[in-house]
């Protein structure tokens, strides 16, 4: 039995954040140095949803596995867990503690690594390549370093080719890189994996009865002071939404050729073509 742990994070819907920022409606909470989340839907980080998908594909491929989903904090974490259960996750672990409030990526990695240890380790740890909120990409490699296991990042395909070996195809700038990694290992998943499946209505309904196990810092044997330390080392002191006035010169004309000629002329004058 292969034990797969998926690390998932709740984030504000990035499309809504985008639209709010563009419309000048995004607001800052000066106390916490975060964006105000009222009226912004939250959900599972899209890259993490692809990590859940990667786990499901392994099961589809015939891998005998248990799938755990672990998540730290959040405003409405039940949605994240219910989606995971509906897709086929066997166990959910919600990590909640007063000391986890406002934790950064490094602190989060410490919590997740401690939780994985507490749960007896995992053979394959999957997570998104980065969060769509802070875009850090720190959790995967850090969890790997803390557990002293390898990490393979930006995967588009994960298979188990022989006992204890995963074959991972990475989406690298030049194209693809295929590696074999010894388990246990962390693999971070990129959007190249493809669109994650949706749970069926019946599965979603059944999943409503399932609840994650809640674990505190003490439960997983983590010193709360360790988590706080991360926050002190890298402290967000300002947050702001850059204003963009826009000085676009719209080119108009009687025909497409007319507009094309005007643009070609303008770019030629700028010496960029």
């Amino acid at each position, binding site marked *: 039995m292969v034990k797969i742990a998926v690390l998932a994070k709740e984030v504000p819907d990035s499309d809504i954040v*985008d639209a709010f920022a563009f419309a000048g409606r995004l607001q800052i909470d000066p106390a916490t140095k975060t964006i105000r989340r009222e009226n912004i839907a939250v959900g599972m980080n899209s890259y993490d949803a692809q990590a859940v998908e990667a786990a499901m594909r392994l099961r589809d491929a015939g891998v005998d596995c248990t799938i755990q989903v672990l998540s730290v904090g959040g405003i409405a974490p039940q949605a994240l867990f219910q989606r995971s259960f509906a897709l086929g996750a066997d166990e959910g672990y919600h990590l909640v503690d007063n000391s986890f409030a406002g934790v950064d990526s490094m602190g989060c990695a410490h919590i997740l690594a401690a939780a994985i240890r507490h749960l007896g380790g995992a053979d394959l740890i999957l997570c998104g*390549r980065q969060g769509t909120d802070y*875009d850090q990409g720190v959790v995967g490699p850090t969890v*790997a370093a803390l557990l002293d296991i390898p990490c393979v990042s930006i995967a588009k395909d994960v298979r188990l080719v022989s006992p204890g070996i995963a074959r991972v195809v990475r989406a690298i700038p030049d194209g693809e890189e295929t590696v074999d990694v010894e388990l246990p290992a962390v693999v971070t998943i990129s959007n190249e994996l493809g*669109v994650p499946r949706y749970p069926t209505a019946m599965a979603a309904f059944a999943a409503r009865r399932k609840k994650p196990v809640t674990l505190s810092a003490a439960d997983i044997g983590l010193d709360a002071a360790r988590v706080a330390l991360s926050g002190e*080392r890298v402290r967000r002191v300002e947050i702001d939404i850059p204003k963009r006035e826009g000085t676009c010169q719209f080119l108009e004309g009687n025909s497409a*050729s007319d507009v094309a000629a005007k643009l*070609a002329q303008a770019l030629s004058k700028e010496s960029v073509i």
Partner: protein
Amino acid sequence: MTAKKSVLIVAQDDGGRLDPVVFDTVTAAKRLTGGAQGGVAAVLTGPPGTQALAEELWATGVADVYVAEHAALAEPRADSHARAVAVAVRQARPSLVLVGQTLLGRDLAPYLAARMDAGVIMNATELRLDASGATEVVCPIYGGGVQAVYRVSESPPSVVGFQRTVKSTAERVSHSRGRVIPVDPGLGGFKDKVKLVERSARSGPRLEEANVVVSGGMGLGEAKNYRYIEELAEVLGGLPGASRAICDLGWAARARQVGLTGTRVFPNLYMAVGIAGASQHLAGMSTSKVIVAVNTDTKAPIFKYARYGVTLDCVEFLPAFIAECRKLKSHS
């Protein structure tokens, strides 16, 4: 906090030369340290022979180059390289470690921070000092729609991932020979648990170095219209790019994706054709010199970044513009 700043740059190679991001990190580090003598040092990690790259660093004015060579460092794996860098950090005792965000750098920075039990912050675009002399790091978040500033502690030195936002130039400021300080990477018993099976070869010109990039998005309507993007790019002597949306649909190859999780580009001319301008995309091209947007939706975010806007349908506009550019090129 007001103690003298010193930065150790994790210099990475890119097929026998320094990766261009190294020059950006050198510039940022010099600015932070105010050009103080010995304020900026670098570390090179790689297989035997890596030391040769030290000359390129000396030319940028970085005199002290720590070099860790070991056969296990031939592959760009975060685990082994982070171990070697950690040894150099202990020797150099900097107040900040700066890592360019290459494919390796993005994993190496957090690995290193975990190994040193230090703080880490990624995607930095600027380093600066606050009024008290503490180091601050400016980072875009939420795909670039929001900007955050972090104050980072210096003991242990925080690890900062730095991203390219401009086309880097290797400016030669020094002709003197610097120092090579050998580092024992401590990889004696190290066993690489990641084995390479296959890797696509880097071929052809690179998107991030192109002077002209023409990108297509959903506004193209269907897959076959991407050929106009390729044709226009060719006529202009540039390269074709694409939005994430059309790469997800398979209209364009993955390697063409411009954006936060694709390639970041900084050409003289960037043409966004049928691209609305999600922050995911803007993060990868907003520092281009001249941006042209072609989109029927006059309210599309991309127009806030564009110098020139065309609100015609792209499939109507592209053939006309390709013809104009051909005319222009044949006259010049």
